[in-house]
């Protein structure tokens, strides 16, 4: 077969965003040898784009905060489908994980007494997000990267993993190719951690980069692991809508946290019109109270713009559908109005939201200190993913671990902003440690040459078809268009049935894709290899969404617009069944133990 290079590590971490880096650092600290693989250059993973901050109940700004309140907020946001053990560990450990970053050089914004400053964010009762202006992700990934490179970790940059290797039930390594030369590489390992991020590229309008093709989800699925909660995709309410080429780029929630308001074409602040019952007690009565909240008044409740993302996104969709949208099919987000409240508002906005200022100025020629932005929903985050054990992060397949966005459980039906960055740190560390322990007891084993041969042959097949096959970009484009239209923010049975038919057709087209050029840094080829992963996750999303005949969190059914208690007792689970067919099941959620039930009750 085509030659390949072999490398061996105790622990192989796939993905070098926040979760992967943190896992690699943790595994290295356990004294095992660690390899870290990523599709891009080091430091460029999605985590770099995160803006608003990392949620941790340190109580630096409001000492009423505690892990218990954070836990209750996370569960409420997730509509109680969360893996409660993960929500508990996350809330308890996030403060230490954030402080640890400071010990590694991170510089967060400060309180007047010199501690880490925390900001308000949707769904969080108290100011909780440690941040650096609106570039928190950069601070986090750079800190982990600069610390990580001195921990003896072997980094394999611009290498894409195509398949996981198994010995019996156990995962024992991975097989992939380097982008630069297109040569194959075999990774033998005692344990593998997946930290591959999300799936946003399955949709046309997204805040996610080309990397987000659901690779980890698909790799785990084909290795026999269960996926969970795949119907829950987060559509962020505020993406850019104009000009067309920037459609989908994120406008951070921080804009609303600093006092930005949503306005329709009639000048109405429509978010006050629809406040869900379970958030009424925590939401401001009027604009004045909302403003005071954003300015740190502890007696004020949050403005309705800071309700959970699923809700805000649907309100925007409603305004647009009912003809009250802005000229380019969004609504207005206005931060400039705070000039009525603050003497030096323009400078204040530039200081608090520097990259938003820059982004709109440069890409849309809009000055956000004097003009409102046009915004609309954009595919942003995948709550669903690989089903893991809450303590160890091991998937349902021995030796295979998952952390970060590609894992499921912490966020339930809807993620609160800021809970992802802290998720990466808490569960990245746990996954790295568990994987190291597992690897010490389970050595890398023999390699199934035939499986490698098959994987290599399949990867090279598009070259054989050459110009006779269809280009991968067209298939990807049609998939994105279809998922956006048929399995987007508002879903219906008939549309999703059509999507399943569409997916079958797209699968056939994907199997006939052809590639020109050679194996060296060939994006056409890379896109062809990403396609099967996108198709796998799209099918998992569609099947799960069809099965959940209710509306909850990120999942909204036009034909079942209400929440249904009968659906609150299980997680939807996807597995690869006999003959390679996708099978769907329902796993009951274990009841909350009394100490956690009490916390939920106290924070109702």
């Amino acid at each position: 077969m085509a030659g390949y290079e072999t490398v061996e590590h105790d622990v192989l971490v796939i993905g070098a965003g926040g979760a992967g880096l943190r896992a690699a650092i943790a595994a290295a600290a356990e004294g095992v040898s660690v390899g870290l693989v990523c599709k891009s250059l080091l430091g460029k993973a999605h985590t770099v784009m995160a803006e608003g901050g990392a949620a941790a109940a340190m109580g630096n700004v409001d000492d009423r905060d505690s892990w218990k309140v954070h836990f209750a907020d996370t569960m409420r946001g997730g509509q109680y489908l969360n893996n409660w053990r993960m929500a508990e560990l996350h809330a308890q450990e996030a403060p230490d994980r954030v402080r640890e970053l400071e010990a590694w050089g991170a510089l967060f914004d400060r309180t007047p007494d010199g501690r880490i400053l925390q900001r308000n964010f949707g769904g969080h009762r108290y100011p909780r997000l440690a941040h650096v202006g609106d570039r928190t992700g950069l601070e986090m990934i750079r800190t982990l990267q600069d610390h990580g490179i001195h921990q003896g970790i072997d980094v394999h940059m611009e290498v894409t993993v195509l398949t996981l290797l198994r010995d019996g039930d156990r995962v024992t390594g991975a097989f992939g190719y380097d982008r630069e030369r297109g040569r194959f590489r075999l990774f033998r390992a005692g344990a593998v951690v997946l930290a591959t991020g999300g799936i946003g590229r399955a949709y046309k309008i997204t805040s996610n980069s080309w990397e987000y093709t659901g690779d980890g989800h698909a790799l785990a699925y084909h290795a026999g692991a269960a996926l969970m909660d795949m119907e829950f995709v987060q559509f962020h309410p505020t993406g850019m809508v104009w000009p067309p080429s920037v459609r989908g780029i994120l406008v951070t929630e921080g804009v609303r946290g600093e006092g930005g308001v949503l306005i329709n074409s009639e000048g109405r602040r429509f978010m006050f019109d629809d406040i869900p019952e379970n958030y009424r007690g925590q939401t401001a009565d009027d604009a004045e109270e909302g403003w005071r909240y954003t300015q740190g008044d502890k007696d004020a409740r949050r403005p309705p713009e800071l309700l959970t993302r699923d809700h805000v996104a649907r309100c925007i969709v409603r305004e647009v559908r009912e003809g009250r949208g802005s000229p380019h099919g969004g609504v207005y987000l206005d931060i400039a109005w705070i000039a009525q409240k603050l003497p030096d508002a323009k400078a204040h906005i530039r200081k608090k939201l520097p990259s938003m200022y820059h982004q709109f100025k440069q890409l849309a020629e809009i000055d956000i200190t004097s003009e409102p932005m046009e915004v609309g929903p954009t595919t942003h985050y995948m709550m669903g993913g690989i089903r893991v054990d809450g303590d160890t992060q091991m998937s349902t397949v021995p030796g295979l671990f998952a952390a970060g966005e590609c894992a499921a459980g912490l966020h339930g039906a809807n993620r609160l902003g800021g809970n992802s960055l802290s998720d990466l740190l808490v569960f990245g560390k746990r996954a790295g440690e568990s994987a190291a322990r597992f690897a010490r007891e389970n050595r890398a084993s023999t390699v199934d040459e035939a499986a490698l041969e098959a994987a290599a042959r399949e990867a090279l097949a598009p070259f054989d078809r050459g110009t006779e096959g269809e280009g991968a970009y067209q298939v990807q484009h049609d998939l994105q268009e279809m998922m956006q239209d048929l399995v987007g923010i508002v879903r219906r049975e008939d549309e999703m049935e059509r999507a399943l038919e569409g997916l079958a057709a797209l699968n056939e087209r994907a199997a006939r894709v052809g590639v020109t050029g050679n194996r060296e840094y060939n994006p056409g080829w890379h896109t062809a290899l990403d396609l099967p992963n996108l198709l796998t996750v799209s099918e998992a999303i569609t099947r799960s969404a069809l099965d959940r005949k209710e509306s909850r969190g990120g999942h909204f059914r036009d034909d079942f617009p209400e929440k249904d208690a009968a659906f609150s007792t299980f997680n939807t689970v996807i597995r690869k069944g006999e003959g390679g067919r996708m099978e769907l099941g329902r796993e009951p959620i274990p009841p909350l133990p009394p100490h956690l039930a009490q916390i939920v009750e106290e924070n109702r």
Partner: protein
Amino acid sequence: MSAPETRTAPAPTAGGGMAAVEAGARAAAKSDRATSSAAKTATFRVWRGDAAGGGLVDFTLQVSDGMVVLDAIHQIQAEQANDLAVRWNCKAGKCGSCSAEINGMPRLMCMTRLGELDLSQPVTVEPMRAFPRIRDLVTDVSWNFAAKKSLKPFKPRAPDAPDGTWRMDQRDVDRVQEFRKCIECFLCQDVCHVLRDHHKHDEFVGPRLLVQAAMLEMHPLDTEDRVDDLRRAHGIGYCNITKCCTKVCPEGITITDNAIIPLKERVVDRHFDPLAKLVQLVRGRKR
């Protein structure tokens, strides 16, 4: 002063209300003009080839002003040359992947709008020159990652508080945050003549890593000493303050004035000013 409209007061008011809508409509009209979605034709003269060699190839396509150069490259990739190699991730100026030379200027492709270029002439798009070529617009920037490892890592002072945390003043943090904004696009490395023309990669770490060194040296918690390294291993003396790096930095970091010159001063103080050196020794600290 009235707040934006409320549930109880639905009449449009100032600020976030009707005024915002009017301003928004104005802005939308303005950005329509600026981004005139009316398609026009433009030619992109893109360098294609690999380490062995290559040349400029013309691609003609329909574009609009609202597009950025990276959009045009993607369109070429999708429609005319599937295998055109380019790096990108965020498409929002945050990851520093898409560096190239556009009409000879080192820039991020995702932050260069077509509206600011003269489209009556072909737009040239070439890979960075200071690094070995891999394919088309992709260069081998691995040297930057290796060179970074040669900088001594962050070493914090003991925590200030019993709970293991530190107290820092926002002003001290602000100074260093300027350097931490760096997105590692390596455009400054690309433009610096010491690397680009004189190929001193073995002796000089380049402006990006001098920014990193400045970040570490001015970090409020750091206790490490990098001054000797700066002079010897990192070759700070090669920099003759041409400020080309500062001009191209997409993050607006004042590389020369705020990072390199203060570092040079430290080196000079230490090595050529016996008095300063003595004072430093007596105080036992670096600043």
